[in-house]
């Protein structure tokens, strides 16, 4: 299948007093139309910067897309003018953010903010835009949409605001929705509703979704394929089922093992220790030689200290950047 978006060798740097630091370093992946790609990793791994780079929203300076391509329908987003990019942003590719409290403008009603996007990208009268907003509110599961379009953000709960954000993002029927930690600020019962909404809308509209999260549970529940990022690199890329059944990279395996599973607890009883990953994520300004994970890795071998492992196909449909991958069970 022709990918909808193909990222090739993306490198995004931030300039510090002592020189540039690559927050995203040589990242390549593709998103097929109508699929959900999960991007998972811990803070500072580069998952959000990857998304912001695709949207061309990296603040310059101190940020800078140093090299790479982002081919959307074959057009390189990274070489477009700001004006051309504005026509794609919000209409062909939309993004929602973690914090629905600050992403909405407090002095406009929720309906105004949806209508603004509709009128910006499409010909529509005020009346039509308002009608469309009400319809979108209904689709994203906001109760009493005729009344809620006139509500201000502070009159809504966190979950409702995130639904408004989704309505804004979907206003122009984008082909790709980038969702950056869309449920992290929400309570677990509200999170379940938002994830279900994203999945339903994705299926109805045959849209592609790039879902960025730190929660592997969210990935397992929602995604088709997944990228695992660590210290600016993709360390593993696989189908969701494969990744959870047989992770190839020791970091992925470590993450999975460090989360207590309620199902396992019910079967085995507790009193087992969690398998924690020792140490902490290295600073991007003082990366170890060779593999970036080797100092914390239980499977590290001699070569790991000298040769940075490339992302390679290890098993069918499963890529990992590792010299000594976890064997298949």
């Amino acid at each position, binding site marked *: 299948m022709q990918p909808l978006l193909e990222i090739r060798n993306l490198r995004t740097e931030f300039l510090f007093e002592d020189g540039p630091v690559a927050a995203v370093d040589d990242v390549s992946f593709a998103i097929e139309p109508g699929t959900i790609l999960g991007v998972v990793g*811990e*803070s500072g791994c580069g998952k959000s910067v990857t998304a912001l780079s695709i949207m061309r929203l990296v603040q310059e300076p101190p940020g800078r897309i140093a090299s790479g391509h982002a081919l959307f329908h074959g057009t390189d987003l990274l070489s477009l003018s700001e004006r051309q990019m504005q026509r794609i942003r919000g209409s062909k590719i939309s993004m929602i953010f973690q914090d629905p409290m600050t992403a909405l403008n407090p002095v406009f009603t929720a309906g105004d903010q949806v209508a603004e996007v509709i009128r910006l990208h499409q010909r529509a009268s005020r009346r039509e835009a308002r009608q469309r907003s009400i319809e979108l509110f209904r689709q994203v599961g906001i*109760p009493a949409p005729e009344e809620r379009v006139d509500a201000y953000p502070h009159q809504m*709960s966190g*979950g*409702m605001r995130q639904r408004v954000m989704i309505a804004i993002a979907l206003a122009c029927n984008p082909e790709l929705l980038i969702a950056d930690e869309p449920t992290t600020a929400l*309570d*677990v*019962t*509200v*999170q*379940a*509703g938002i*994830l*279900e909404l994203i999945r339903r809308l994705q299926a109805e509209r045959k849209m592609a979704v790039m879902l960025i999260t*730190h*929660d*592997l*549970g*969210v990935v*397992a*529940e929602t995604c088709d394929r997944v990228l695992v990022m660590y210290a600016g690199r993709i360390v593993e890329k696989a189908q*969701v*089922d494969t990744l*959870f*059944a047989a992770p190839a990279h020791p970091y992925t395996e*470590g*993450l*999975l093992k*460090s*989360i*207590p*599973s*309620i*199902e396992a*607890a*019910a079967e085995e*009883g*507790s009193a087992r*220790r*969690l*398998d*924690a*990953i*020792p140490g*902490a*994520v290295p600073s991007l300004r003082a990366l170890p030689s060779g593999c970036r994970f080797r100092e*914390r890795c239980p499977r590290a071998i001699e070569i790991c200290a000298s040769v940075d492992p490339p992302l390679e196909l290890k098993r069918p449909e499963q890529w990992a950047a590792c010299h000594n991958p976890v064997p298949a069970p």
Partner: protein
Amino acid sequence: MGRLPQPGASAVSEPLLEVRDLSVHFPVRVGIWGRVRGTVKAVDQVDLQIARGETLGLVGESGCGKSTLGRAILKLIQPTAGRIRFDRQDLTGLSQRQLRPIRRRMQIIFQDPYASLNPRMTVGQIIGEALTIHRLASGAELRRRVLALLDKMGLPRDAEKRYPHEFSGGQRQRIGIARSLAVNPELIVADEPISALDVSIQAQIVNLLVDLQRELHLSYLFIAHDLRIVEYVSNRVAVMYLGKIVELADATQLYRAPKHPYTQALLSAIPVLDPARRRQRIVLGGEVPSPITPPSGCAFHPRCPYAFDRCRQETPPLYQVAPGHTAACFLVPEATAPKQAS
């Protein structure tokens, strides 16, 4: 007053902490004159006990009152009503001065390891401060104890002379734990101790807390919204909704057979770590209501899939489901005797 039997050790020995009918109400003030318009029942008639060496998990969504309850138990917030007994001593009428020796024995670990450490103090000063305040150690003895704590926490000894900003989130949380442990407490209120940390660091801190508990026979009130971690660390778990405990049971029992519809929804909302087991979940309608204007009757009724007339009119008491398992829902078989409202 029919006290509920507690499972495990607490059934035989005296609980270390016993909280009865604890309420914390805050006035809601409006306008520039601060006219009192109503009250928020942040914590409303809560009963709980914690045995020595036991972990009681406390879960609930934001605004349910779990942190307020934790702070009220430590008397960091003055309760409006109710009794707190710690090691058989009633804390209700005690003055600040009388409380001081008890405060040493009850400590807190905060959520945010960035905001809860004084940036102008060295790690050694932060950990040693409570020892000085409680006049437990000074001079060389103080230093020896600080270094011993650093060792125990897996922190380098040179941390003593360094400042909090030089450490990562996980290390800062270790410093926070060392500070709490310095005065040899018996009860620790851990208020979301891992939610600000990265996934790979969370497990390290959880293991540390579990190891320390085994070694020092600590009791924990473990407050968290991550239900997986709570299940892992707790002996018993209490579920809060809008200021009230709606279910309390042995951890295994609660996760296997939740009785309150809210607990059921909460557990069903946890994403499963197995893509092959994606499931139909209970998605709750509506949102957590405002605690300023709580619904009538059972506070959960507007979102409850099983609500009927009685739920709108009466507040359900905690019914006993099984020994040590209570749930505040009219659907719990009425054959079981209701716990006496006090």
